[in-house]
């Protein structure tokens, strides 16, 4: 593992994290407590009234406030967003830094400390004369669609703006205690657009200087001090799934800022008693001061990384080959298909000797088939993406299972069914060309995606890899057709939708698995198995059905919510290739060589 990763470093020297002494301490704490009491007392007020109280407080401090109205399209509830801009006197009003404190965190808890801290910081920021970039503080109802709506409006229609946003921090600290344990930094961005590593590094460095432990990729508290292969692997896998799944899950947090060239992170305070609340305030202060120091943009090459640990990262040059190899599997399979390797009935050597040429008509037909399947799938993706914006009523459950999972599962049985029912023959050149084209297309698409969104490309490449082994033949055996069906089934997008859906819903903890593997003991295994059984006994089986539904709905909504094109990409590459391979696996071909032999004999 050594040599494959590096210690993080600050690439942009101007940032100078934690070089200045932060003064958000001592009596500032009294203010935070004062504000907290006030916030707790207005917990049950309607949002508009709460906004009004904050509005008055911030106006008094000298902020320019404005309220952006937003109506939840599903429930029709009004969720106005209050935001306050400090136009700093020494800047030129062209750049801004954003602090976001949603009223409710993704779990629906009242975000007491985050709100109190934001007010305390707002008051404190006015005292500093160092600001060169404007400061914007946002109080959305939640950090999902409401915040996203604000970000969109800021760049399209808001009257009062404070320049281009350079960095954003979303605060999630629902406790109302004075102390916190450690902080968790979430950095995933939609479509693989991670925030600049310098910003993440800055926040981490500042936090460590404040003696606050930082966890990334959901690393549990107990693993914060470990630095071995298994813990890092676990963190890496978690990180990959976090990034690959960005923009899909209900809680977006910092992902709301994706796509507008904004570096955004979420800081989540985890309960505990190691640090006090002003530590968190100082982390934000210091991070803002660092960003404030920036004379340029963030460095360009620092957007592609995988964090293993707050202080260790894998840079793009190190991880790309993995994705490249995974995608290359399809290219190799495609070459294999071309030379006829996919033809289970033919001898490859004789095939190569015979001819590598594909006749024009089957080639054109194969191309048209591929294009048609891609076209249909993309149309399907675009149609389904917009399905929730039209005023049609859909039952998400029906949509998932009736219209997606079930058809795909059934059609993955086509190779077997067609063995008995459908005995249409087609030119071997056609199937050869089709498998060649779609597999090559898959490889190409994955490589293209790899550089932009490595985790997604990697996950799809792994999940779809069995497609490479689907075979056709002139006289297929039932066994071959069964194998085809199995390969099609395990590479079916619907299957993985269910798997990931359940994993996400049941909050599967990879760390436990790591624990068993790393410190294997029979008693440990027994204990975990017992835990699992207990869980299965307690849990409502509905959860297993709901997980995939939520994931599917998230995928469908992703594009309209945050322009997340995961679903569109799946429908652009995986699904059409799967359908084409299904066709290939279910079809009979003319056995050209043997047919020719027959012809010769006839002559």
């Amino acid at each position, binding site marked *: 593992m050594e040599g494959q990763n590096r210690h993080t470093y600050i690439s942009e020297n101007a940032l100078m994290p934690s070089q200045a002494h932060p003064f958000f301490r001592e009596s500032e704490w009294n*203010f935070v407590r004062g504000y907290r009491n006030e916030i707790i007392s207005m917990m049950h007020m309607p949002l508009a009234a709460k906004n009004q109280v904050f509005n008055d407080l911030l106006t*008094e401090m000298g902020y320019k406030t404005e309220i952006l109205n937003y109506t939840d399209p599903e429930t029709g509830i009004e969720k106005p967003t209050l935001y306050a801009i400090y136009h700093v006197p020494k800047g030129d*009003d062209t750049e801004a830094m954003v602090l976001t404190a949603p009223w409710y965190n993704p779990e629906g808890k009242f975000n007491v400390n985050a709100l109190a801290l934001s007010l305390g910081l707002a008051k404190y920021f006015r005292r500093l004369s160092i600001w060169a970039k404007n400061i914007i503080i946002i109080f959305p109802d939640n950090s999902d669609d409401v915040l996203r709506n604000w970000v969109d409006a800021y760049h399209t229609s808001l009257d*009062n703006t404070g320049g281009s946003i350079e960095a954003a921090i979303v605060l999630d600290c629902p406790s109302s205690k004075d102390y916190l344990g450690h902080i968790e930094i979430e950095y995933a961005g939609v479509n693989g657009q991670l925030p600049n590593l310098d910003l993440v590094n800055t926040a981490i460095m500042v936090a460590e200087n404040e003696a606050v432990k930082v966890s990334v990729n959901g690393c549990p508290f107990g693993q914060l001090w470990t630095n071995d292969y298994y813990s890092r692997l676990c963190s890496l896998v978690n990180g990959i799934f976090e990034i690959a799944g960005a923009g899909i899950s209900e809680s977006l947090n910092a992902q709301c800022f994706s796509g507008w060239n904004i570096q955004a992170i979420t800081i989540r305070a985890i309960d505990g008693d190691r640090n006090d609340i002003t530590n968190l305030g100082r982390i934000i202060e210091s991070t803002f001061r660092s960003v404030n120091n920036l004379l340029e943009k963030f460095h*360009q090459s620092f957007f592609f990384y995988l964090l293993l640990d707050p202080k260790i990262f894998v840079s793009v040059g190190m991880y790309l080959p993995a994705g490249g190899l995974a995608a290359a599997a399809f290219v190799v399979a495609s070459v294999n298909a071309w030379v006829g390797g996919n033809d289970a009935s033919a001898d490859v050597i004789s095939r190569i000797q015979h001819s590598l*040429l594909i006749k024009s008509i089957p080639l054109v037909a194969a191309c048209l088939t591929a294009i048609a399947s891609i076209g249909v799938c993309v149309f399907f993706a675009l149609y389904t993406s917009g399905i929730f914006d039209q005023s049609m009523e859909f039952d998400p459950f029906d949509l998932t299972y009736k219209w997606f999972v079930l058809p795909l599962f059934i059609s993955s049985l086509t190779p077997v069914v067609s063995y008995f029912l459908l005995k249409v023959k087609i030119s071997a050149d056609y199937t050869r060309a089709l498998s060649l084209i779609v597999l090559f297309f898959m490889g*190409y698409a994955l490589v293209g995606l790899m550089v932009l969104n490595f985790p997604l490309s990697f996950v799809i490449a792994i999940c779809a890899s069995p497609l490479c082994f689907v075979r056709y033949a002139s006289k297929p055996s039932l066994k071959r057709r069964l194998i085809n069906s199995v390969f099609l089934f395990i590479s079916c997008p619907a299957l993985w939708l269910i798997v990931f859906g359940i994993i996400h819903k049941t909050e599967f903890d990879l760390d436990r698995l790591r624990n068993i593997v790393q410190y294997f003991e029979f008693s440990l295994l027994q204990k975990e198995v017992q835990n699992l059984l207990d869980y299965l006994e307690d849990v409502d089986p509905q959860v297993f059905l709901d997980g995939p539904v939520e994931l599917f709905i998230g995928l469908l909504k992703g594009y309209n919510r945050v322009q997340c094109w995961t679903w569109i990409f799946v429908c652009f590459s995986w699904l059409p290739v799967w359908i084409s391979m299904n066709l290939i696996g279910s079809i009979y071909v003319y056995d050209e060589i043997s047919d020719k032999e027959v012809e010769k004999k006839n002559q």
Partner: protein
Amino acid sequence: MKLGIVELVLLLLAQRGFGGDQSEVGLTTPAEVEFDVTKGSTEVDVVESPTKDSVSERLFVEDDVKSEEAADDDVANAVPETAVGKSSEENQLRIVLGSGDEGAEAVEGERERQGAEEVEETTATLEPKEIRFFDRNNKNFPNTEYLEVKPLHGNNLLVSFNFEANGTTELYPQADEVLYYDVIPKSLGAVLKSTNTRELHLRFGHGWYDSEVNGKLVHNGFSSGGTGVELWATIEADTKEKAFEEWIRLANSLSGMFCASFNFIDSSVTTYPEKLFGGDIDLESQVDLIGKLYHFRSALPREPICTENLTPFLKLLPTKGKQGISTLLSGNKMFNAEWTSMSIDVVTDCEGGDAKHCKQTMEQSINMILNVPKILEKNQMPIPKPTPGTELRCDESRIFDLYHCFPLPLSKEYHYSLIDLFGKAIEGGSLVASEPTKVCLDVNLANWELEMLSLSPITEFFDGSNICFELDTSAEYNFRFNTNNASDVNPVEPPPFYASRSLSGYSQDAGGFRLDLYNPNDESQKIIIFETLPWFVRLYMHSMTISVGDEYGNTKIMSVHDKDLPDYVKQIIYNPAVDRVAPTHLELLIEAPPKSKLKFSFKFDKAMLLYAEYPPDANHGFELEPTIFALADKDNNNEIKYIMRTTTSLLTLPTPDFSMPYNVIILTLTVLALAFGSFFNLIVKKTVKEEDAEILQRERPLEKIKKNIRGLFGR
């Protein structure tokens, strides 16, 4: 006699102040000085005449010692080469120096066109033709100064410094004529003369102006600039090309003078304004000009404004920042303000129709908005350390103990003086002004108390809601403001409209911006929008959409093709950009209906710059200069009532990046493209022997047709 000398020293000072060129003084040798003294009979008159005057004597008797010291100090500061003792002989010498200098300067100015170096050599030997002194008695010093202070809402304070100088000038001086630089310092005046600049306007701006709190811009915005620097001028020349050459020369000269990057002005940032910036005075209708007048305007929004721009500004003043209200202006205090703006306007007015006696005015002003609590806190605690627990101001109606404190709103009680705000008091009124330095404080006496702290008696009078003071001695003056309700201020006039600009870009290759305009008045207003965009912003005028929202919340959206558009957009002046040659120049005359919110949105493409066109130093993007909104008179569109500027906007251009990820993308895709190419060839082409190829070629349908055609023609 002595008094007269003292006074003359002061006068001299004034002239030196206007002359501004000290290098020649050192060249004058004592021998020549003596020669001047004995020869110049006119000087004696001038020397004696003021001494006979009882008024001026009285004036100086009061503070003879002080003023003498001040004068000496000033001379020492202003003219270090000649700074010597205080003996009367030397003072006399200095008088002569002054007059000699004056004459020399005059001649030199005239010869400026032929070349400065040559002149410097001849200066010493030239005999002065005329000696000019300003007569204190007749108050014909050419300049005045005036300070205005007005508390605003939000504990802000408007401080406006105004300096004005008036003189006469000649549009077309003859080659052998004497030129005077008594009003406009020679450093600037010579440049203006040599470039035939009839009007010059300079603006330096910094910070963000909050028009909701601070109301209308002071002087209706005519002395305020946007972020960065801005320069516009009216130049007389025969042709536009010549005028442009002069414009570039002017910009280059000013660049060194004001330590600003005016030298970056070229045709790609220069606009030829039509509605705005067309000159304050219509010289063409007043006199017969030899050439034509051309207007140029340019702005550099990237320019940070700092002390280095303030120092040359102060040097143009007769007091050089050593006396009068300008003593308050120091860089470290001034640029701590919430918003600062400096302006210099030089205008030539030939109202009498005589090109030989035109009025030339130079106005300089500095306006700033100070946030008083911030400054006071900074004075008390330069580092923002936490407030000690005992000094916390907590709301006692809420939970309040050793740990909890809900902060009270800011105190309304304030006590501060000019020393708190500027670090020093006004060091005497300007004694080289045609009238005493005027300080006007616009405070609400119901809740405010003013204290004037000075050793010298002071004249005070009321001017509307202002309380004004005349500072006519060189004693120190300090004003102290005490209030128990700082929010009770004299009414602040709201601006006639509110406007802002925001970028709405979302990609590297295209973007857009929108202009928001709100007319809060009950009647419709005609507003001119002036927008200049650099050439790499490729604006699409057809993408202009206007949305008009009325007070009831109805919104009407119009595109350029809409037939209702002329109801709102009365006139469009549009000069599209030319790559690397000219910027986009857009002027819109619009009519904003009462209580309406107008939103203009435009789309543009971002051009790719050449590698070397990116700034070499650290940069965070490209600034777009502020949009200018001006309120035109209802009946006369050319008369501007109010003018304001938005802030700059930061534009990200596609930046070439040769770092690793992009290499990887390019490389992998190239490899794949190559792979695709060979795959494709292998699939659709077959390999044949050469002789077979010929046969095959002959059998191609096209060849057959060709053959048939050839057969038709009998070949």
